[in-house]
């Protein structure tokens, strides 16, 4: 294994005179004959000097019985989560959220959580050391996370936990073992990685910030909020290995539904009072949020007044409806962004019917009306909004954006440089794999002549750019008129389209209520499905 690394060094060993060097764990040169360790350490690895001989040999310099590493301190898993929340809060504040988010709201929520789950700020903490030993002898730590075939745990005997609570051999933190049992996780309402996002979401909601859950997840995906591989930034003294990996490692960005569910549970756990009311000047209010989405999908601004009418009629703009109140049993925890999108879709349906026939007829009429009135219109071209023109503009942009997203997802690095070692016996293998991966990546980078880092895109709440600029996705249709959709009958303006359709409604049990869309999808009009696809791409909700 190491001959290529020690190839350049051919001094004979002082003790035995042979020239056969290898590398120890601590990257020091030692003689294979007499195990004499010398001062020389490994040089910078240069892949181009790869020689073709490779024989694996190394000695381990540390005994397996070490229970405490030098320079570390003992830490609990909730401290780790606290650190992560701090990083996430700082990132959000850096993105424009008001500073009280970090210092007051999120911090208060976290303290409340610790207090309620009796992990801190309480006279009888659950994690006292006598309790730890008691609990551990009861519950069997599972190794269910890793799907590795044979990763049996070391038996959790009393010797693993010394009575003064030193860190155990299988994790850097003190109580990682508790987090592994599903029963305990549920009973003690322990923290996990998606819950950090849920907590951030609740805090943002409390402050009525403009960042919705969909935005939050999009920022996480763009790595503007630390979530994947956050443990890289743990301070040095928090020794991180073993079971900690299972708790803090992330291999999926949680879905919208999951984070929402976690947020609801957290709100229950925290026993929060009624949230500050969502008024009509607040950015979470559907009137303003729908305006934002209308701009995003390049629909004309005139549509907004219609959307507001729909909001009025459906009473979805009322404060009592919009405000979340965990203390009331019947209060629903709303999906603000989904709601705004749904309102826009319903308005479109009212306006165009969206049954694959009417909307195209109406667009043809719009174009005809335009041609008739062309002498009067300015040089800018048609002023009428035509669904067909809108579709022809937005659809290619959507396909390009989907392709970009897919390639971005394909290139996403999940594994970090700071290696996670789930169990000591796998340490050598894991380190070796990491080394191989890094060497492969560097050699391919030199091959391609570039180092394509993940471009940290400038944070923007809009995913499409409509206008006349060079890198825009298409022409802007915001100024188009909707006159052809409305006709005058007497004194009032009525919609041209007077029909509305809906899929069959039926009762379903709450527990069985899962995924109705996949059943219905094939029977829905294609235009409608496309529109749903557009909004689900925008909100990163994957059906």
């Amino acid at each position, binding site marked *: 294994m190491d001959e*290529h690394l020690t190839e350049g060094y051919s001094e004979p060993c002082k003790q035995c005179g042979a020239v056969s060097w290898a590398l120890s764990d601590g990257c020091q040169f030692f003689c294979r004959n007499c195990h004499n360790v010398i001062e020389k350490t490994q040089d910078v690895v240069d892949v*181009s000097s790869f020689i073709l001989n490779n024989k694996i040999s190394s000695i381990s310099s540390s005994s397996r019985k070490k229970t405490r590493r030098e320079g570390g301190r003992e830490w609990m898993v909730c401290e780790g989560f606290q650190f992560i929340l701090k990083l996430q809060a700082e990132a959000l504040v850096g993105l424009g959220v008001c500073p009280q988010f970090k210092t007051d709201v999120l911090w208060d929520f976290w303290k409340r959580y610790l207090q309620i789950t009796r992990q801190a700020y309480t006279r009888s903490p659950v994690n006292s050391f006598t309790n730890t030993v008691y609990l551990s002898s009861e519950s069997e730590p599972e190794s269910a996370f890793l799907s590795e075939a044979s990763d049996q745990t070391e038996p959790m005997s009393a010797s693993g936990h010394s009575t003064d609570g030193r860190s155990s051999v299988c994790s850097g933190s003190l109580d990682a073992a508790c987090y592994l049992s599903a029963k305990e996780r549920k009973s003690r309402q322990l923290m996990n990685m998606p819950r950090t996002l849920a907590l951030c979401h609740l805090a943002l909601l409390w402050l009525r910030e403009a960042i919705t859950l969909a935005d939050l997840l999009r920022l996480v995906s763009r790595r503007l909020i630390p979530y994947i591989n956050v443990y890289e930034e743990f301070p040095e003294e928090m020794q991180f290995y073993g079971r900690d990996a299972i708790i803090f490692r992330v291999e999926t960005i949680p879905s919208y539904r999951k984070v929402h569910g976690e947020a609801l549970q957290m709100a229950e756990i925290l026993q929060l009072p009624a949230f500050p009311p969502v008024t009509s000047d607040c950015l979470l209010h559907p009137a303003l949020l729908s305006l934002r989405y209308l701009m995003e999908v390049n629909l004309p601004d005139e549509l907004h007044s219609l959307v507001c009418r729909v909001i009025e009629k459906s009473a979805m703009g009322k404060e009592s409806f919009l405000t979340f109140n965990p203390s009331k049993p019947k209060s629903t925890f709303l999906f603000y962004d989904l709601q705004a999108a749904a309102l826009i879709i319903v308005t479109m349906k009212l306006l165009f019917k969206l049954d694959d026939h009417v909307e195209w007829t109406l667009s043809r009429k719009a174009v005809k009306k335009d041609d008739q009135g062309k002498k009067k219109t300015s040089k800018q071209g048609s002023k009428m909004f035509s669904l067909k023109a809108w579709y022809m503009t937005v659809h290619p942009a959507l396909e390009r954006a989907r392709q970009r997203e*897919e390639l971005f997802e*394909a*290139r996403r690095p*999940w594994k970090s440089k700071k290696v996670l070692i789930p169990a000591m016996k796998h340490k050598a293998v894991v380190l070796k794999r990491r080394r*191989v991966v890094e*060497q*492969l990546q560097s050699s391919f980078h030199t091959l391609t002549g570039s180092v394509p880092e993940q471009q940290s895109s400038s944070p923007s709440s809009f995913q499409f750019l409509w206008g006349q600029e060079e890198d825009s996705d298409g022409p802007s249709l915001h100024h188009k008129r909707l006159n052809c959709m409305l006709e005058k009958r007497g004194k009032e303006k009525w919609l041209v389209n007077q029909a509305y359709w809906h899929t069959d409604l039926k009762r379903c049990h709450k527990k069985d209520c899962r995924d109705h869309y996949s059943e219905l999808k094939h029977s829905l009009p294609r235009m409608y499905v496309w529109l749903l696809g557009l909004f689900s791409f925008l909100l990163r909700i994957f059906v």
Partner: protein
Amino acid sequence: MDDIEAELGISRSVGNEDFSDSSEDERVARKIRPPILLHSSTAQARAKESGFHESSRLCLKAIRDAMLHHHWQEAAQYLSAYSQTLEDTTVNKQSLACEIIWRLGTEILQHHPNSRLEDFNALYEQMKNSGVKNYAKICLEHSFHLLLNGHIYDAKRQLSVAASWRYGKQSVPQSLDLKLIHAYCGFLDYVIWHMKKSSVSEAEDNSSNREMHSYFRQASVTLQEIIAQPGVWDPFVLSYVDMLEFYNDQEEALKVLQNYAYNKDYPSNPNAHVYLYQFLKRHEAPPAKLISILKVLHHLVPSHELMQEYCYLLVNSVVPGHLEESLPVVFNLLDYPSWKNDLDTWNCLLTVMTVFKRKGLQHLIANEWKQRKDFWLTMHYRAYHGRKDSELNRELLLVKAKVAKLLGEHGIYYNKFSTEVWGPYNVEDKKRKIV
């Protein structure tokens, strides 16, 4: 259909070669899919996969698209992003990742404009040492690559390192791989010996001579072992015989070749007979012996190029009965489309037929022709052939026309083109059936 099932069955069992007990084999068997279906996954599987696995699936798709479109730069970028799958904690995905990166990496490096030999070496070394399943195969491929780029000594060194490698129980495909490695070790010894031989012939140098001889010894030991096992070992046999001939060990060479050709345990291999024939021809064996070898070859491959020589041998042979055998041989040869436009073959046929006519054996010609008339006329003597031959290959046209004359075919349209043989094309002839 059956073969595909068998193929997949084999690959499934190969994928399951584990060095542990059978229960784990079964468990692994349920998880590993045959490599052919690697890129397709069900919608259910996709719904449950983690973000990491989704990224690697999309990355593999992107690499595949880039490679199919020959965008090698892009493919290299995506492959470097894909290399993170080597750190996957799921066992079966991780072992597949090793193989995928090895195969795709070598393919990309081969086509990429900036790739150098060091890149290949580095990739091979890294992939060899990650995962045990593919070690022997990667070693072989690595040494082939070095051999093709002229680094014979490096190739030899690679193979000798690989030959001494062992890990746990040896599975069946692994033992096959190791056998191949052993064989190619011997072959590379031969190649080095050959290089030394050509360089030594200029300068008389004792030490290099001795080296050459030592390589010969090494090579002959290995090759003898390998050739002794039943199988198809064409390049190894040739190299061994070449070395033996240089050291003037004719009997041993003859023994090896005869064993290779006539031993029932070995799979039927026409090349074995060809090599034996060529060897005997080089060493001026009597024609009777050559004829006997070529007779076997004729049974195996009637369309072989050596059949012409066989025919001439038969014609010139003193043994009675051989002459009559020559006509079917050459007629059989021309039954195959590969010899349709070959002037030498047609000349051979013409010669044989003239000899036969001279010796009064027209009845044999008539027999052979009766069997073949209908399909030969469409295969060789259509109007299209006439046009083509008169434009491209005038000589062939003449020879074929002479043959036709000898066969007694006067009325065919083909003869129109060869007025030198037939004289001017008559109107009366037109009335006959035009083929």
